[in-house]
């Protein structure tokens, strides 16, 4: 049997801890253990991939046997995979203020419980808070002699309050996730915010759907950057012909107010010290002043597509590296909030996010705000609920006409190919003209 043209092994092992507080009860709390590796080998054509549970320590002889198994799998592949050369390097992990694994589970339960109970107030029927933490070691080695090992630690919480009045229910939600250390202390205010929002939404009117001018807050505009621009710029989607951004490098795809960046080096929730193929990470400008500049790549898609840099491969434990976003954002403009509101005059302010989805091949996206406010004569009028936004990527980017200067990043998780990875999205407040807003009343 021939040798592998290339192989790498990515081993992820550690502990995950969760706490679930539901209506004042510690529903569950505890720690579990994981240990899994993925070995990829390039045969004459494409990839053979072995997933090995409970990898632990393996001898060289065992690894050779695995490579042989992977090559046998690769023998059914047809695509001629080539890998672009990409510099390998690793950044130090941002330091943690307080290591979550050094805080006792008892204390985590009690701190989470106080956030949850802060959400409980008159008019609130149910509160629930959840904490999750994953602490572990990621080890990487490849046949080119690159070898890395680093510790990761993510932790975060969410708190949800459900308000009820005369059979009508509404929900308020707050969450925070971080790689910068334990984050459950002094967060009762977040619980109160979730509770107050749920109650306020009881009086909010259903949004009136239709086409209108909108101001998007930092969180929702960040989701827009992620869903509408980020996914369509992922090199694997471009390579496979399923992105409307294919063949658009150097073209104007948005108004000159729009610059979009993916930067895995920022110490935000999407930070990675090195990518999942051992490639050094760098900031990538996807759109500069409305012009498409680069795609996000791994080594394979860079070789196949070009226009961009590798270093955007990510993988969850036990899965293959694919092209992913990290910290994705729209850059600041220079408009003040008053200028944004004045420019809209009559429209809607959309706030918060319940997530979104995109079909990058069709260029269509959909996402949901948590709530919003009607804008009348440049002033905020009544609160509205259940407002969503959908549209066409290429049209919508031309409709972002004004960006504020208050960019903020929001942490979250992004799913693709069955893998959920930590990311952050961000943006300043911005104005989107002719937004397609969904609501109950047309």
């Amino acid at each position, binding site marked *: 049997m021939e040798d592998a043209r290339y192989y790498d092994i990515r081993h992820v092992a550690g502990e995950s801890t969760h706490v679930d507080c539901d209506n004042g009860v510690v529903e569950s*709390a505890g720690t579990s253990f994981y240990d899994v590796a993925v070995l990829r080998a390039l045969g004459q054509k494409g990839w053979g991939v072995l997933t090995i549970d409970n990898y632990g320590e393996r001898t060289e002889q065992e690894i050779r046997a695995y490579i042989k198994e992977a090559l046998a799998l690769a023998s059914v592949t047809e695509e001629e995979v080539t890998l672009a050369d990409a510099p390998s390097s690793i950044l130090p992990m941002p330091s943690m203020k307080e290591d979550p694994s050094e805080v006792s589970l008892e204390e985590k339960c009690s701190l989470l419980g106080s956030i949850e109970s802060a959400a409980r107030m008159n008019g609130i029927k149910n509160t629930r808070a959840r904490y999750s933490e994953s602490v572990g070691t990621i080890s990487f080695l490849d046949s080119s002699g690159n070898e890395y090992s680093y510790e990761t630690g993510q932790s975060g919480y969410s708190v949800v309050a459900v308000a009820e009045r005369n059979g009508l229910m509404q929900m308020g939600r707050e969450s925070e996730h971080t790689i910068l250390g334990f984050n459950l202390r002094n967060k009762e205010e977040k619980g109160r915010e979730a509770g107050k929002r749920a109650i306020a939404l009881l009086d909010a009117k259903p949004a009136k759907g239709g086409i209108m001018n909108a101001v998007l807050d930092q969180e929702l505009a960040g989701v827009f950057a992620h869903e509408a621009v980020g996914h369509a710029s992922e090199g694997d989607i471009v390579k496979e012909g399923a992105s409307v951004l294919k063949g658009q490098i150097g073209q104007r795809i948005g108004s000159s107010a729009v610059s979009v960046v993916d930067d895995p080096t920022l110490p935000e929730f999407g930070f990675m010290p090195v990518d999942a193929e051992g490639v050094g990470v760098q900031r990538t400008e996807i759109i500069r002043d409305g012009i498409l500049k680069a795609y996000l790549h791994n080594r394979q898609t860079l070789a196949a597509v070009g226009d961009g840099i590798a270093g955007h491969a990510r993988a969850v434990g036990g899965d293959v590296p694919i092209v992913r976003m990290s910290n994705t954002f729209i850059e600041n403009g220079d408009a003040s909030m008053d200028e944004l509101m004045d420019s809209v005059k009559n429209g809607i302010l959309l706030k918060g996010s319940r997530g979104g989805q995109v*079909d990058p091949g069709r260029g269509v996206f959909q996402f949901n705000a948590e709530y919003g406010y009607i804008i009348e004569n440049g002033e905020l009028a009544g609160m509205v609920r259940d407002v969503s936004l959908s549209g066409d990527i290429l049209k919508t980017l031309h409709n972002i006409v004004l960006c504020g200067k208050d960019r903020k990043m929001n942490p979250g998780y992004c799913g693709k190919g069955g893998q959920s990875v930590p990311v952050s999205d961000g943006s300043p407040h911005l104005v989107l003209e002719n937004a397609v807003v969904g609501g109950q009343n047309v």
Partner: protein
Amino acid sequence: MSEILDEERLIEQILRAGTKSAADVEVFLSEGHSVNAELKRDLIGEAGESRSWGLGIRVISEGRIGASSTNDPARWKDCLQAALDAGKLATPQEWGGLPEKADVSRKLATFDPSLEVDVHVAHDLLREMLVGAEEHPADIVGGSAGLSTGSLTLANSNGVMYSREGTGVGISLETISGTSTGYEFGSSCFMDLDPVDVGRKAAFYAVHSVGGKEIADGTYDLVLSPVAVAELLGNVFVPALSGRNVGAGRSFLADRIGEECMPPGVSLYDDPFHGQRSTNWDSEGVLTRRLDFVQDGILKCFAYDLRTAYRYGTKSTGSAVRGGPGGAPSIGMHNLYLDGPRSETGEEPALYAHDLVGAHTANPVTGDFSVELSNASWIEGGNPGEPVRSAMLSGNVFSMLREISALGPESRSLGSMVLPSVRFNSQQIIGK
């Protein structure tokens, strides 16, 4: 054979060690072997194989429930200790014990001895999908074929030791024509999928959506495919049937037992004996049974696992499934059927949607949602007509289900749901 003996010995060891510190001990062991092959455009770019092993331990003492999991057999003691530690922190609740051994010998169809977990079989499935896709001029974006076999063993300190084996095959194909995308998939426990047909449909959806016309804002009669119906049910209605959400005050359906929530004649039930997720025992060893959530349009019951049932003074409905954090069971569905009188859904003119974009952003508490339609077209006389370029559907899942006007003649098996296409009259659409 020796592996099975090792496994039994491990389980007995854990039960013995666990019962020294806890009143009830439960062990859940899963093993799996799977292969997959992935198309990148129309060429296979990746072939994989995976062997998995997982252990979940749950301990209960004086109503305190603790759980942990690991995939390292050598760490079972750490895992047991973590479960015991977790139990100490949980708030005590009413607890009436784990189930005792019962008759679980009913024969169920979830295992196909002819299914080979072989990457060459996956290769052939992909090739056959590509043959089907050639019938329409679409480009292939990607595709996947996977085969798996696995076993589950559940044991507890009351003498339960149940095992079951299952096999599975799944295929999917993604296509594009210009900026029209298409996607089709299939899954089964048996080697009975029709990959040529899956390929043909994936290509058809992309090609048929080319040149879609805009649609004006307004209300339209709407037909949703089984895939689109599954999105709405799964994101909103199914969570509202969970006894935990009902008890906690997070379910819209909480106080509506006995009320009409679908039109007369329409039923929604979980049949644990027919379908891809069939099982005689749930993830806690409780015997499963048919559950009629909605019967003849009337809401009849909710789904409970043991802990939620004991907490709210009712009985487990055998609805525990695995997948909770730390290897703990949670409430779910086995094979959920939407059923009732069948008729043609697309005979009279209507707007048709094959899939939805963004259904997971629905408000799970209130049921309000807005989604983009995928592969939308007009339909009449049972035949797809002119494509529609883009349309947003806004509504409320709970009120929409009361407005069902017809269920299509055939049902489709989608993992844990078996659903027909559904016609809804007068739905609100936002065009461009």
